[in-house]
C-alpha cells in the first residue's frame, strides 16, 4: 500500500479534532476507500494507545533482568560486620560469611541480605517475617539470630549464628552413622521443629539441605525463609497459604502443600517423615518420572510410598536413580543403613505414619513422632501401627473413589429405591385384599433385595480382587442387575421404573453412557406409560437424560429433553404444586442454558442461566440442594467469562469456589470445574501465573473426583496447552494439547465435539511452530466435527476455516486457501452479521489471500 500517503493523511487527521476526524476523512478521501479504512483504523489505535509502550514496563523488565547481578564484595561492611565471602543464595536472599571485628568482639557470623533488585514490598515483607520468626526462637538446634539492621544502601539484613557443618545426609554418610545414631540426631531435629511449633511457627521447607550438622554432631535448623507465623489468635487453626506451592521444595512437600490446601504443623511432620525416610534408606519415598506439577501431584498425592525396609533393601530401587541432588552427596554406599532388617516393623510403621496423605492421620505432634522413635530405641512398643484393615478398606474407597464409593452408593441407591417401591406396594396392598399372588410378588422383591445385599456385601469385603479390577467391578455389577430387573420386576411396573432409573444414573456416573441411556429411556417410557408426561418422576428422568445427552454431545436431544423438564417444573412452580422444586427447576434451567451456550445461542443461554440463578437464590435452598445455587453461580460465571465479561463473571466464580470449599469433606468435582473457569478467566486476561495455579488445582480436583478420563479434565488440559502456547513454550503446549485429545477420545469415543477443542489448539500450536502441514490436518478434523453438528455454531466454523486457509497459505497452496477463505466469508456474512468482528476478519483474510494471488480486483471488491 501507499505508506507515505497513509502517513501524510494520518498526520493531517491528527490536527483535526478527534470527534470530527471521520467526517474529515470521508470528505477529503472518500474516493480512496482503502486509504480511509487504513487511516481510520490507525486513528482508532491512536486513541487507545496512549499508555502503550510506556517506559515503566521496560524499567521493570530491566530490574528483573539484573536481579541476578553480582552482590556484595569481600571487605564490604554491613554495620559492624565485614563480608568475607558468599556462602549461599536462595530465592530472595544472599548469605555471606562475615566477621564482626570491633573493639568488643571478634566473631564469625552469617549475614543474610535481600537480593538486589528484588527488594519489592512482597519480598521485604517476607524478609522481615523471617527476621521476626528467628527473633522469637531460641533453641540450641536452631541457628540463632544475633543482629539485624539496614545496610548503607538501604537493604535490610540480619545476622545469624554461623553454623560450620555439613548438610544432614552428607554428615551421616561421611561419619558412617548407624541407624541408631541417625535416629538420635533426627530426634534433636524434631525438638527444634517442636520448639518452632510451640512458638506458632511452621517451617514449611524442612529438607536435609536446610539442616546442618556441626562437627560435634549437633544439628542446626536453618532457613525460615518461607516459614509461617500463625496468628496467636488463631492458634491451632490451620491456614491457607496460596503461595505455598511456589515456595516449597517439591520433593519434601506434603500432599496438602501440593494441592495448595491448608498448611498446618502436620505439614512439617510430613516433611520430617520424608527426611527420616531418606536418612534411613538413602532414597526418597517417591519416584518422580519428571518434575512436572502433574507428576508431582500424582506421586505425592496418589501413590503410596514403599516401606522404608523395602526401599533400603533395594527392592524398590531398580527404576529409581539415587537421590543425589538434595545436598549434593551420592547415596551409593550405605552398608549400615541398608540394613533393611533394622527398619522392618516399627520404623516402617513410624515413617509411614508421618507420611500419611491425610494430615489428621499423621502424628498429632512432632513430640509424639519423636517420642515414638525414643520408644523404638528403647525397645518399647510404639504407637504407630500398620494400617488397619478398616483403614485400608476406607483408603481403598477414597483412592478408587469412583468405582468403590460409587459401588456402595449405587447399592444404597438401588436398595433405597426398592424400599420405597416396597413401601408403596405395601401401601397399595393395605387397600386391597392380601391376595396370594401379591404376597408372592412381595416375596420375590424381597429375594431380589437380599441377593443384591449379599452381592454388595461380597464386593465390599473382598478388597483385593476389587482393587485389581477397579471400576470394572461396578459396571459388572450393574450389568448383572439390569437384566434381573427386567426379568423379575416385569409385573411390578412402578418398582421397575424406579429401579431402571437408578441403574441408569449409576451407569451414567460410571461414564457408561450407552447403557445409561438405554436404562433411563426404558425408565422414562415406563413412567410416561404409568403416569403420563407431566409428573415429577418423568421430569426428573428427563432432566437426567437431558444431562446425559449433553454429555454425549447430542445437543439437540439434550435441549429438547431439558426444555420439557423445565416446562413441567415451571408449571408446577406457578401452580405452587406440592411437588414443585426450585432446586430441580434451577438445575434443569442451568443445564439447558449450558447446552444453548454450546449451540452458540448465547442470548437464550444467558437468559436461562440468569433465570436459574434467580430462582435458586430466591428459594433459600438448604443442605444438598444448596449445591444447585453454587452450581448456577459457577455456570453463569463461566459463561460470562467465556464471552469475555470478566467483570461480572469472575466474582460469581470466586463466590462459587469459596462456597464449594466450605462444603465439609473432600472437594467436590464441581469445584474442579469452577476453578477451571477461573483459570480460563485469568488466562484470557493474560494473568498467566494465576491461571496456571487455578488450572493445576482444578486438574488435581478433577482427577481426584472424576478419575483420569473425564471431559472436564480434557478441557482443563486444553486450557493448560493454551497457557503454554501463550508463554511461547510450544513443546509443553503441544504435549498438553495431545494429552487433552487423548483424554477426550478415551472419555468419549463417540462425542467428538469434545475433541474439537484440543484439535483446534493443536492446530494453532503447530502453525506457530511452522508445521503448517500438520496444523492443516487438525484444523480439518476440527472442522469436520463442527460441520457434523445439527445446529451449526458458526463462530467456531468460521474461526477454524480462517485458520485452515492460513495453514494452506503457509504451504503455498493459494487456490485451496482462497476457496476455504471464501467459504469462511460466506458462512460468516449471513450467520454472524456483517458487523461481527469475525465477519470482518473473514473478509480481510479473503482479501489478503486474493492479494497474494494477485487478484487485485477481487480483493478491492471486498474492501
Amino acid at each position, binding site marked *: 500500500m501507499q505508506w507515505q500517503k497513509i502517513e501524510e493523511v494520518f498526520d493531517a487527521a491528527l490536527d483535526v479534532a478527534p470527534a470530527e476526524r471521520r467526517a474529515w476523512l470521508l470528505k477529503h478521501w472518500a474516493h480512496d476507500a482503502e486509504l480511509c479504512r487504513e487511516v481510520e483504523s490507525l486513528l482508532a489505535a491512536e486513541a487507545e494507545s496512549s499508555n502503550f509502550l510506556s517506559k515503566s514496563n*521496560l524499567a521493570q523488565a*530491566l*530490574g528483573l*533482568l539484573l536481579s541476578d547481578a553480582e552482590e556484595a564484595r569481600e571487605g564490604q561492611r554491613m554495620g559492624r560486620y565485614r563480608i568475607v565471602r558468599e556462602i549461599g543464595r536462595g530465592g530472595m536472599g544472599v548469605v555471606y560469611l562475615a566477621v564482626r571485628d570491633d573493639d568488643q568482639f571478634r566473631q564469625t557470623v552469617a549475614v543474610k541480605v535481600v537480593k538486589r533488585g528484588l527488594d519489592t514490598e512482597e519480598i521485604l515483607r517476607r524478609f522481615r517475617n523471617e527476621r521476626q520468626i528467628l527473633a522469637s526462637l531460641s533453641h540450641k538446634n536452631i541457628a540463632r539470630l544475633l543482629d539485624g539492621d539496614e545496610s548503607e544502601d538501604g537493604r535490610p539484613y540480619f545476622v545469624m549464628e554461623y553454623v560450620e557443618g555439613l548438610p544432614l545426609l552428607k554428615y551421616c554418610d561421611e561419619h558412617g552413622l548407624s541407624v541408631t545414631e541417625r535416629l538420635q540426631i533426627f530426634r534433636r531435629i524434631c525438638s527444634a521443629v517442636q520448639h518452632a511449633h510451640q512458638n506458632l511457627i511452621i517451617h514449611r521447607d524442612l529438607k536435609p539441605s536446610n539442616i546442618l550438622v556441626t562437627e560435634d554432631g549437633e544439628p542446626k535448623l536453618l532457613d525460615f525463609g518461607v516459614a509461617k507465623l500463625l496468628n496467636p489468635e488463631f492458634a491451632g487453626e490451620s491456614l491457607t497459604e496460596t503461595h505455598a506451592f511456589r515456595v516449597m521444595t517439591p520433593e519434601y512437600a506434603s500432599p496438602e502443600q501440593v494441592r495448595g490446601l491448608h498448611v498446618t504443623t502436620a505439614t512439617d511432620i510430613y516433611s520430617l517423615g520424608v527426611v527420616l525416610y531418606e536418612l534411613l534408606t538413602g532414597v526418597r519415598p517417591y519416584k518422580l518420572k519428571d518434575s512436572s506439577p502433574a507428576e508431582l501431584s500424582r506421586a505425592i498425592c496418589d501413590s503410596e510410598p514403599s516401606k522404608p525396609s523395602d526401599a533400603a533393601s533395594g527392592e524398590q530401587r531398580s527404576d529409581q536413580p539415587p537421590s543425589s541432588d538434595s545436598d549434593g552427596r551420592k547415596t551409593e554406599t550405605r552398608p549400615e543403613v541398608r540394613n533393611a532388617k533394622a527398619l522392618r516393623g516399627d520404623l516402617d510403621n513410624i515413617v509411614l505414619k508421618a507420611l500419611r496423605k491425610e494430615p489428621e492421620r499423621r502424628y498429632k505432634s512432632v513430640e509424639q513422632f519423636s517420642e515414638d522413635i525414643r520408644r523404638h530405641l528403647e525397645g518399647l512398643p510404639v504407637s504407630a501401627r500398620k494400617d488397619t484393615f478398616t483403614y485400608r478398606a476406607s483408603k481403598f474407597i477414597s483412592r478408587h473413589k469412583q468405582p468403590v464409593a460409587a459401588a456402595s452408593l449405587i447399592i444404597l441407591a438401588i436398595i433405597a429405591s426398592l424400599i420405597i417401591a416396597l413401601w408403596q406396594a405395601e401401601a397399595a396392598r393395605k387397600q386391597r385384599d392380601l391376595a396370594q399372588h401379591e404376597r408372592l410378588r412381595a416375596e420375590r422383591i424381597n429375594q431380589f433385595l437380599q441377593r443384591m445385599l449379599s452381592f454388595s456385601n461380597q464386593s465390599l469385603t473382598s478388597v483385593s480382587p476389587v482393587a485389581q479390577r477397579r471400576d470394572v467391578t461396578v459396571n459388572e455389577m450393574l450389568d448383572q442387575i439390569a437384566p434381573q430387573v427386567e426379568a423379575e420386576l416385569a409385573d411390578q411396573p412402578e418398582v421397575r421404573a424406579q429401579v431402571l432409573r437408578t441403574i441408569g444414573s449409576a451407569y451414567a456416573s460410571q461414564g457408561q453412557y450407552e447403557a445409561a441411556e438405554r436404562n433411563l429411556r426404558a425408565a422414562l417410557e415406563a413412567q410416561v406409560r404409568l403416569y403420563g408426561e407431566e409428573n415429577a418422576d418423568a421430569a426428573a428422568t428427563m432432566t437426567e437424560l437431558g444431562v446425559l445427552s449433553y454429555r454425549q454431545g447430542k445437543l439437540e436431544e439434550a435441549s429438547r429433553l431439558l426444555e420439557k423438564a423445565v416446562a413441567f417444573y415451571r408449571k408446577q412452580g406457578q401452580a405452587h404444586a406440592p411437588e414443585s422444586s426450585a432446586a430441580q427447576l434451577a438445575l434443569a434451567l442451568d443445564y439447558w442454558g449450558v447446552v444453548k451456550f454450546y449451540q452458540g445461542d448465547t442470548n437464550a443461554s444467558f437468559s436461562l442461566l440468569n433465570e436459574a440463578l434467580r430462582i435458586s437464590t430466591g428459594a433459600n435452598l438448604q443442605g444438598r440442594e444448596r449445591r444447585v445455587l453454587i452450581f448456577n453461580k459457577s455456570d453463569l460465571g463461566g459463561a460470562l467469562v467465556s464471552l469475555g465479561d470478566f467483570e461480572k463473571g469472575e466474582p460469581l466464580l470466586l463466590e462459587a469456589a469459596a462456597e464449594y470449599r466450605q462444603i465439609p469433606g473432600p472437594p467436590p468435582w464441581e469445584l474442579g470445574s469452577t476453578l477451571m473457569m477461573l483459570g480460563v478467566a485469568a488466562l484470557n486476561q493474560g494473568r498467566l501465573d494465576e491461571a496456571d495455579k487455578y488450572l493445576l488445582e482444578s486438574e488435581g480436583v478433577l482427577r481426584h473426583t472424576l478419575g483420569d478420563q473425564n471431559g472436564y479434565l480434557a478441557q482443563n488440559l486444553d486450557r493448560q496447552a493454551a497457557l503454554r502456547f*501463550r508463554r511461547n513454550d510450544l513443546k509443553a503446549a503441544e504435549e498438553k494439547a495431545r494429552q487433552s485429545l487423548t483424554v477426550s477420545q478415551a472419555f468419549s469415543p463417540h462425542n467428538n465435539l469434545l475433541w474439537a477443542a484440543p484439535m483446534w489448539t493443536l492446530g494453532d500450536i503447530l502453525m506457530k511452530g511452522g508445521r503448517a502441514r500438520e496444523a492443516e490436518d487438525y484444523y480439518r478434523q476440527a472442522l469436520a466435527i463442527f460441520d457434523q453438528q445439527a445446529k451449526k455454531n458458526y463462530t467456531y466454523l468460521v474461526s477454524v476455516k480462517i485458520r485452515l486457509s492460513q495453514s494452506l497459505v503457509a504451504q503455498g497452496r493459494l487456490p485451496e486457501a482462497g476457496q476455504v477463505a471464501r467459504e469462511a466469508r460466506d458462512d460468516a456474512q449471513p450467520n454472524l452479521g456483517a458487523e461481527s468482528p469475525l465477519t470482518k476478519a473473514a473478509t480481510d483474510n479473503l482479501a489478503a489471500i486474493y492479494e497474494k494471488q494477485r487478484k487485485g480486483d477481487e480483493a478491492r471488491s471486498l474492501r
Partner: protein
Amino acid sequence: MLAPEGHMGEGERDVTQMLLAWSAGEPGAKDSLFPLVYDELKRIARHYLRREREEHTLQPTALVHEAYLRLVDQTRVTWQNRAHFYGMTATMMRRILVNHARAHATEKRGGAARRLSLEEANISVEQSATDLIALDEALNRLVQLDERKGRVVELLYFGGLEHREVAEVLNVSEKTVQRDWQIARSWLYRELSLASN
C-alpha cells in the same frame, strides 16, 4: 577487560577507537564493539541497583548515558559518533530484554497474544501490547515498512531516550520524531491487537 570502577584503563580506549572505526564505516567494528558495551551496560546497571535503591525502578536512559560516559573518551568523538553509540545501545537493550523475555517464557507478560480456541474471546490489547516478544516481531515488520519509524521506537522505548535525543541521533527534527512516534505506536498497537483476534 574492563577498567575497575572509577578508573580509566586500557579497555575504554579500545571502545573509543572501535566506535570511531565503526562511524567511519569499517566493517566488523560494530561486532567487536557490541560485547564490550553490553558488558558495561550490565555492570553499570548493577551499580545503579546498588546505589539508587530509593528510585526503585531503573530507567534505561541512565544506563545508556553512563555507559557512554564511561566507555568513550569524550575528547575524541563527534556527536555523530555519539549518535551511533546511542543507536547501538538501544538495539542492545531491545535484544537483551527480548532474549530475556524469551528465556523466561514471557512469564510476566501476556504472552504471545493470539486468539486460541473455544471460549477464548477478549484478550485485552494492553496485555498483548506489553508482550515484548510480540512487540519485537511487530517492530521487525515495521522496520520493513518504514525503517526510520522502527528506529524511533527502538530509541524511544528500548533506548529510553527523550524525543530531543532521538532527534539528535537520527538527525531529524523533534517534530518529525513526534510524528513518527505517534504513527508508529498506533501502527504497532493495531498490529498487536489484530494479532490477538
